[in-house]
């Protein structure tokens, strides 16, 4: 469907593919290990030597294939890791995204969460390292956060195996729900929003933009994203 999407060779169609995204050191791999146990294998993304870890998990009798994305601070196209992570998300292969957030560093981690929400994929947030956050005096209301983001938010302490069942449950509920995609929308302010609306309107009539979320495409174009520009080259 796209130039910038990079599919990966995994999973038969009967399985639910979950992309595990998160910033470096958010405990992404620990969550991955918690959910998959030892049922995992390591490969490379096609054409590049960036490690790709794939594992399997059973949730409520459904088979899940988890793909551990490279840790990235954001989802632009500036680094190879970001291009790979984003390419996989856009490939159409993953059914769900599990965004692993370091609860003790929520503000910085939400940068990536917002970018993932802008890609408008069904998503679950794992609020990881809740013990560290609480130990540091940080109090987070997962329910309130969930309401604000429009996705399920599950507190976890992956190191101690806490939250495994709840993450599974949230993934399955999101997969099964009809309105799984959050309508969360980042407000860029009146000036930018006006320009965004103009560009989005132009893109709506452009065949090359079909298959992408127009708002996402518009924001990335406005940010000067080189990979996204290639679509219109």
């Amino acid at each position, binding site marked *: 469907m796209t130039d910038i999407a990079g599919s990966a060779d995994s999973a038969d169609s009967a399985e639910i593919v979950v992309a595990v995204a998160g910033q470096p050191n958010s405990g992404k791999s620990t969550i991955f290990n918690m959910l998959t146990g030892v049922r995992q294998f390591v490969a490379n993304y096609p054409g590049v030597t960036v490690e790709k870890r794939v594992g399997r998990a059973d949730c409520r009798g459904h088979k899940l294939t988890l793909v551990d994305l490279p840790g990235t*601070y*954001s989802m632009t196209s*500036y*680094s190879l890791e970001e291009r790979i992570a984003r390419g996989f998300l856009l490939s159409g292969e993953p059914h769900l995204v599990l965004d692993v957030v370091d609860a*003790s560093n929520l503000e910085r981690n939400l940068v990536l969460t917002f970018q993932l929400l802008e890609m408008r994929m069904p998503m679950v947030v794992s609020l990881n390292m809740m013990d560290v956050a609480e130990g540091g005096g940080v109090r987070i209301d997962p329910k309130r956060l969930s309401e604000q983001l429009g996705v399920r938010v599950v507190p976890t302490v992956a190191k101690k195996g806490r939250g495994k069942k709840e993450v599974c449950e949230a993934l399955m509920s999101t997969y099964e729900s009809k309105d799984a995609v959050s309508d969360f929308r980042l407000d860029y302010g009146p000036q930018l929003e006006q320009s965004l609306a103009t560009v989005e309107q132009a893109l709506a009539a452009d065949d090359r933009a079909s298959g992408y979320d127009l708002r996402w495409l518009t924001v990335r174009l406005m940010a000067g994203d080189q990979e996204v520009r290639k679509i219109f080259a």
Partner: protein
Amino acid sequence: MAVTDTTDQKDVTAMTGTKRLNSLKPGDSCILKDIKGTGATAQRFMDLGLIPGVTIKVVRNAPLVDPVELLVKGSHVSVRHSEARKIEVIPL
């Protein structure tokens, strides 16, 4: 925020009371005013929480001076002096 191209603004900074982050010493604190850069570097700065208005504390320099360790919103962030030079700050 204004993300502009890197320019040598020594004279301007002398007038506005702003400094470049690389000129601060360990123990100094400041408020980020502007990022004088574009592209990957500016994006990474912002990803790491280096956005206008944020308070930065200079923790220490690495043994061979580079990089410099910063404390931003409870996170320790290390940047090269050449990159720190692109960050305009108001010393506290």
